[in-house]
């Protein structure tokens, strides 16, 4: 069989080496927030000019798939998705790591990623031409509803706190419209600042919203970041395989979702992860465990996001439509090599295409040994690194990540501001995830909505455009189910409970006495959000109709929801004790001064980056943060070790960024 000969061509020692090197490099880069597959692939494109096309492509594909997988590492270990694809991985991965199951979580993520990658890759191998039609069947209306479906996850993520979750989503959606609008070309909410013209970068926002709060709380106490490895040595692989086998349907379903979402240009791994997470939660018998360290949640997102790699290559190779940014670069590399993309590619240049696909599959399999090794090492080193080095290193990674995307320190500042905001909001019950979801899905929702409206208006069929298309209808039904399922579930449970007796209700009520009291701070936030909503609405008066409709609607929603929140709070009884609601969860001995110092150092870092240069400002901040996390007066040896480590870490990353990844560094006073 012809296809088998291509398999042997992919199995040459050189190609295997390329695949292994690519996977390892990709995993390492993907695990650092902000350093993306796109950067790594872009840097390596020139090397492929001199290689045989197949070897070059195999390496690029391996880096890409490795990076998507590597994003799970930082999601699990430091609550920050290394790539946006891993957003939903933080929901259950970090809680698992916190309770000491970090190594298990990484092993599970590895298995799920390999399975997802294989499903995506095999679909690419066998079904590419028919599946490519999916990309064409999705019009603006479908993208709009897909984004809405993603947003329904908020109702599941914020059970018992839905109003606050929805308010968070509105804030995220409003943040997503900042900058120059794709549709309509309006300049929105930039406050005449040049820095905001490009909008709020999603990656740096995610880093800020998820990672900075963790960092701020990390410096406050001397408790370890994540529970250390239990003394008794467990076989994580066997345990992970057992859990994975138990969740095999979940894994398969998520892989298929990931493949299909991957085919849709512009949707990408983050939506694939969110959609499959929602579906896994809905199908689970224990939906209440999701978000608290449920392995099934982790399996869903990690298998889905790696399936998007193979899925994304389907429209790239068949139609010449890149599904994701790395696909776009690989497409460019193919064109430079003189390869003609299109439906005939699989027949006329089958040798290159099939060798590449086999290479991708081999690279996916290689993730298993590479990932298990790297993963164990990563968890061990994170749980053993003393806080005095861990905190500045994580902080340094957040700064690198937010800076590297556009070589711009404005993004770093945005990251810091959003991070501090997220920390404050989180203390009053506004979780960061709804904000992130709004930010990620906002543009897709808005563009889909306005485009659908414009097309419908031109054809005099607005309602039909929104509600009359079969795929749209299917997505709407799924979204409605997700939205209503918790309510139905609650209703069924209540009926069961009322039969069993009322005692449970009493204990449940007693368990959460604090949240039922009025909080003047929350009322204050509600007032602030009402003011924000009104302000945002007033601004839309100067915009074109196309640019105003979305922010106007969201601003109105924000005002209404905030009013509801205020009323909910006012109906609660006044609290007798002091501000117990927020301080109750506080560990004893937490230091607010250290928190403040951390925030100030981060802010100064972002501001001084373009003035002093990247290395010098980073090293100064690194040392300052080491000092901020030092709880006992250190001896001389410790100081020297810490100083040497700081130079090594900062210098190493500086060289990686400026020399290897060729990221432009700011021209400061120093370097």
């Amino acid at each position: 069989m012809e296809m088998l000969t291509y398999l042997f061509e992919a199995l040459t020692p050189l190609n295997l080496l390329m695949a292994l090197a690519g996977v390892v490099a990709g995993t390492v880069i993907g695990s650092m927030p902000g350093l993306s597959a796109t950067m790594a692939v872009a840097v390596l494109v020139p090397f492929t000019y001199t290689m045989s096309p197949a070897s070059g492509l195999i390496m690029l594909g391996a880096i890409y798939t490795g990076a998507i997988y590597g994003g799970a590492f930082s999601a699990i270990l430091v609550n920050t998705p290394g790539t946006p694809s891993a957003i939903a991985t933080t929901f259950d991965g970090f809680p698992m790591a916190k309770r000491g199951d970090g190594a298990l979580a990484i092993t599970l993520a590895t298995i799920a990623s390999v399975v997802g990658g294989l499903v995506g890759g095999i679909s690419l191998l066998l079904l590419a031409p028919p599946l490519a039609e999916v990309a064409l069947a999705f019009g603006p209306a479908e993208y709009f509803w897909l984004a809405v479906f993603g947003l329904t996850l908020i109702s599941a993520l914020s059970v018992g706190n839905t109003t606050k979750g929805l308010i968070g989503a509105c804030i995220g959606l409003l943040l997503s419209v900042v900058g120059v609008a794709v549709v309509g070309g309006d300049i929105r909410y930039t406050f005449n600042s040049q820095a905001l013209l490009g909008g709020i970068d999603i990656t740096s926002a995610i880093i800020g919203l998820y990672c900075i709060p963790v960092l701020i709380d990390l410096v406050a106490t001397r408790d370890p970041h994540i529970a250390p490895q239990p003394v008794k040595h467990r076989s994580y692989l066997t345990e992970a395989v057992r859990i994975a086998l138990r969740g095999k349907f979940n894994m398969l379903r998520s892989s298929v979702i990931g493949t299909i979402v991957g085919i849709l240009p512009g949707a990408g791994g983050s939506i694939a992860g969110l959609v499959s997470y929602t579906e896994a939660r809905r199908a689970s018998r224990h939906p209440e465990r999701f978000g608290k360290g449920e392995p099934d949640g982790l399996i869903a997102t990690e298998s889905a996001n790696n399936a998007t790699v193979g899925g994304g290559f389907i429209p790239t190779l068949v139609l010449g439509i890149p599904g994701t940014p790395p696909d776009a670069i690989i497409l460019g590399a193919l064109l430079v090599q003189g390869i003609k993309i299109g439906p005939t590619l699989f027949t006329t240049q089958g040798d290159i295409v099939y060798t590449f696909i086999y290479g991708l599959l081999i690279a996916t399999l290689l993730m298993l040994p590479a990932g298990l090794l790297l993963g164990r090492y990563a968890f061990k080193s994170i749980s053993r690194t003393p806080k005095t080095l861990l905190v500045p290193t994580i902080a340094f990674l957040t700064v690198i990540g937010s800076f590297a995307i556009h070589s711009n320190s404005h993004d770093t500042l945005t990251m810091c501001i959003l991070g501090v905001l997220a920390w404050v909001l989180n203390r009053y019950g506004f979780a960061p995830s709804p904000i992130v979801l709004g930010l990620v899905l906002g543009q897709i929702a808005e563009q889909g909505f306005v485009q659908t409206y414009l097309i419908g208006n031109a054809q005099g069929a607005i309602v039909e455009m929104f509600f009359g298309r079969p795929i749209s209808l299917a997505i709407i039904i799924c979204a409605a189910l997700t939205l209503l399922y918790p309510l139905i579930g609650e209703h069924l449970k209540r009926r069961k409970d009322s039969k069993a007796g009322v005692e449970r209700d009493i204990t449940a009520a007693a368990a959460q006495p604090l949240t039922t009291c009025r909080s003047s701070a929350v009322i204050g936030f509600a007032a602030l959000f009402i003011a924000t909503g009104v302000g945002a609405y007033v601004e839309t008066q100067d915009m074109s109709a196309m640019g105003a409709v979305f922010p106007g609607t969201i601003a109105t929603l924000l005002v209404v929801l905030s009013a509801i929140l205020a009323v909910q709070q006012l109906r609660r009884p006044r609290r007798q004790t002091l501000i117990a609601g927020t301080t109750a969860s506080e560990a004893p001995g937490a230091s607010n001064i250290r928190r403040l110092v951390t925030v100030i150092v981060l802010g100064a870092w972002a501001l001084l980056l373009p003035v002093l240069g990247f290395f010098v400002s980073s090293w100064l901040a690194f040392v300052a943060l080491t000092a901020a996390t030092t709880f006992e007066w250190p001896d001389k040896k410790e100081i020297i070790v810490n100083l040497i480590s700081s130079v090594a870490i900062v210098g190493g990353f500086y060289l990686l960024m400026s020399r290897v990844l060729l990221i432009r560094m700011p021209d400061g006073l120093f370097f």
Partner: protein
Amino acid sequence: MNSNNLKTMLISVAATTALAVASFMTTASADSYPSKPVNYIIPFNAGGESDLSARFQQASFEKVAGAPTVIQYMAGAGGASAWSQLNGMPGDGYTIMGINIPHTILQPLQKEVGYQTDDLTPVHYFHYTPDAIFVPTDSPFKTLSDLMDYASKNPAMVTFSGSGSNSSNNIAQVRFDELAGVTTTYIPFSGTGPAVTAVLGSQVMAGFNYATSGSNYGDKLRMLAVAAEERLPAFPDVPTFRELNLDLVGGAYRGVAVPSSTPENVKQKVSDIVSAINADPDFKQKMEDGGFVLTDITYDKMDDFIAAKTKEYTAVAEKLGITAKR
């Protein structure tokens, strides 16, 4: 440390510094330029037409210039964040940047973006991608006149997808409406990829995209007309708008710019290198196959070219109503 050691160290430091300074001096002269890799900044994300054409250039750069080029990305605000920083970069010829029209003319007209059109120093505009009208292969519109007939009988019913608002595609659609005396609806998408996908999937009736799309999607799309001066070598059967009595020529022009502090002779040298790459048969073949139209607007012709384009697009901007409210 004894004083002897210290002296040796000081001497070696001084020697290294002297060497570094000397090598810096030599790199600044135009005779030996380029003697090390040239940083080529693309003000957009990877994967677009700007990136692709730069990648084609990169493949021929070392052969022509004697030193390789390294492509870096600095995306943001539709290119404005890179262009607004260009003049602050070292003007030694080792930092060059991609530059685009109509972007660099329309952006400063529309808002405060941190640069003015005249602040930038393009040294060579090496190609443009003409706008073109596409329909899916199974569309009832076989020729442009089919589409124009339908559009004049059904005002606003024809939907054109295109890349972004106030973009080259959008301008082409507005001018097409004006020249043909019809009303169509423009649907902006977030880039060429999604806009072409919408045509392929028949989500819109037609697309105003770049001719480059014609080579990637082969037999799935039909190009009805192209906004070039003459027919493109890659698509000899596609008529120009002019042949159909519509005076529509335009698209996105791409060039290479340098920081304003770059010495005149280095500016000229960069312009010469880009010209030489344009003459490279390999490069020419790949670009023309891809639907790019090579232009040779060298440094000496630049002022006239920019003046003409500024006049042209300022008039269009007023028509679109996108000039800043001052």
